[in-house]
């Protein structure tokens, strides 16, 4: 067992699960989507991205790409939240909540691809 692989898999899966946790619930209900959860998703995704740095294989490149996509989506969601809450917006109205959650939904998809790739790689390894 390679401890590096354990940490790697842990963070990638955690990114997916946290993302899913934030995503589930009524899409426009602010009570179903807590901002702390979004914070955790962003942090774990950043860590997952950095862990994927410096892998030369084709698989590594695609993994890195999916992580970058997820980060981009989450960054957009965070900015929407900041603008709505602190930037003179009307707070978390159903419209704003829906757009934040749907952006995180995109990130969720990217994270799903990431995990699928991880599984494929593990299956192909056969060791």
């Amino acid at each position: 067992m390679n401890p590096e692989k354990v940490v790697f898999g842990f963070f990638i899966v955690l990114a997916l699960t946290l993302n899913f946790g934030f995503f589930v619930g009524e899409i426009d209900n602010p009570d179903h989507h807590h901002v702390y959860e979004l914070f955790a998703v962003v942090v774990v995704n950043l860590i997952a991205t950095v862990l994927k740095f410096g892998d030369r294989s084709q698989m590594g490149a695609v993994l890195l790409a999916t992580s970058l996509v997820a980060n981009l989506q989450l960054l957009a969601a965070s900015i929407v939240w900041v603008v709505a809450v602190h930037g003179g917006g009307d707070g978390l109205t159903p419209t704003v909540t829906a757009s934040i959650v749907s952006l995180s939904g995109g990130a969720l998809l990217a994270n799903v691809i990431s995990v699928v790739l991880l599984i494929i790689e593990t299956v192909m390894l056969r060791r």
Partner: protein
Amino acid sequence: MDNIVFLFLRRMRQPLLTLIAVYTVAILGLILIPGEDPQGNTWYMSIFHAFYFVSFMSTTIGFGEIPYAFTDTQRLWVTVSLYTAVVAWIYALGTILSLVQDKTFQRALAERSFARRISRLREPFYLICGYGETGQTLVRALTDRGQHAVVIDRSEQRTNLIQLQNLRDHVPALSADARKPLHLQEAGLPHPACSAVVAVTDDNETNLKIAITSKLLHPDIKVICRADSRDVEANLASFGTDHIVDPFDTFSMYLGTAFHTPCLYLLQRWLGGEENTQLEDPVYPPREGLWVICGYGRFGKAMTSRLTKEGLQVKVIEARPDITGEPPEGWVKGVGTEAETLLEAGLDRAVGIVAGTDDDTDNLSIVMTARDVAPDVFVVVRQNHSENQAIIDAVNADMVMHPSVIIADRIRVMLATPMLHQFSFLAMHQDDSWACELISRISALVNTKVPALEELLIDRELSEAICEAEKAGEQVKLGEVLRDPWFRDRSLPAIVLLVERDGEYLLLPEEDTDLFIGDRLLVVGAKRVFSRLQWNLCHGAALEYVRTGQVQSQAWFWRKLKRSSGDRDDGSDTAGDKE
């Protein structure tokens, strides 16, 4: 190419993770610790505010406590996270800085910029592996002739020399091990403009590896290789190395030529010499009697077998026969620097001596001792290092064997003037009187300096005048273009040594030889001749003048005018213009 990005990312992984962790913990603490607003109400910091605060706190910019003044608990937390975050940043920046200064990283950067420069080359270039004495002489000679070279050498000191040597052309250099195929590829081996690979490192194995790599990765390429031993030569020849240069064999071949055809030897030396150096004097090595050879190394062996083949008597002096192998019958033990040893070998009745050890000081000592014993003896001395040039010159030996120079000269001839190579080959089949006559003709052209030698291609682009003449149905003769375009009664001080036409060679063509498009000429002459020769070849009026003595009108209007008045005026007035 991507090495650098990956190296960078991989090294930055740890510091970036640390930064993310420190930021997260600091932000978490800030949003969880309750604060107090001016009215005394409890409030919790928003994630956005916490991120903003940590961002300027950790970089020590410090805009103050927002949105309200902190409580003491918050300040305690900020103090802890401030120090942690600053250390994390220093760690990250330090890693970047050390990465930039890292040798591996810098080498990766240098290799990348080198490979990019090579891939942009459009003109033919030669890949020179090894930048020792031979490589340096060769690169200088090639760049002086306007040809391009790329250098690869293991030692960084040597490749750095290129920047100091003031070469005419920019020579890209890579300090890397040429035995690795990757480095040869980076240096442009698979590049379509790479026209030859020259392996002149001081190591036989390396040369062998370079040659075989080149032949495998770019089979059409010309490979020229230096080799010092028979085994390596045979090995190199087995996979089709184009030219194998052995300095010792080459010199013994020169000596053989000097024995039988001194003029031909001199001719080769003159034509193959470096431009603008002093012309050599003829040498006449004695062909009968005893030769003493000091040192039975690679050079000594080559000389012994050559002299024995010539039917001369040979005595060898060798200090360490256990290393070099047993010399032939009747050898003497010793270095040869003492008169006793030399006398024991019979120097008092010898006609020639070869100072052929691998130590320049020993060689010089041998020569000086030998001159004391027998002042008239013919001296061949081996020079091992270029820096000893002055003292080797001072001893004024009859022949000097300097391996680096011999190899560089031969390779230079092969690359820069392949026709001269062909010429030397054809000249071998002529007798000595033919060469003597040519020698006297060449010495009449130039005084004491080595003449310039150039290959000229008569093609449609550069020899427009010849094309026009051909179109007009006129046949240009060789003797005609060799006249001075300023004063046609004077012929240019140049000799056409060889004409190549459709793969056939014409040695020393006569003046009335016809000139065709596609001919390739090998011309020897004074340097200034070539620009005038080019005038004759490309300028219609100049060619017309040297052929007929008449000056053709250039512009369309004057030609019209002349044609209409052609009956009254036969053009004799224009000939006066030229004077």
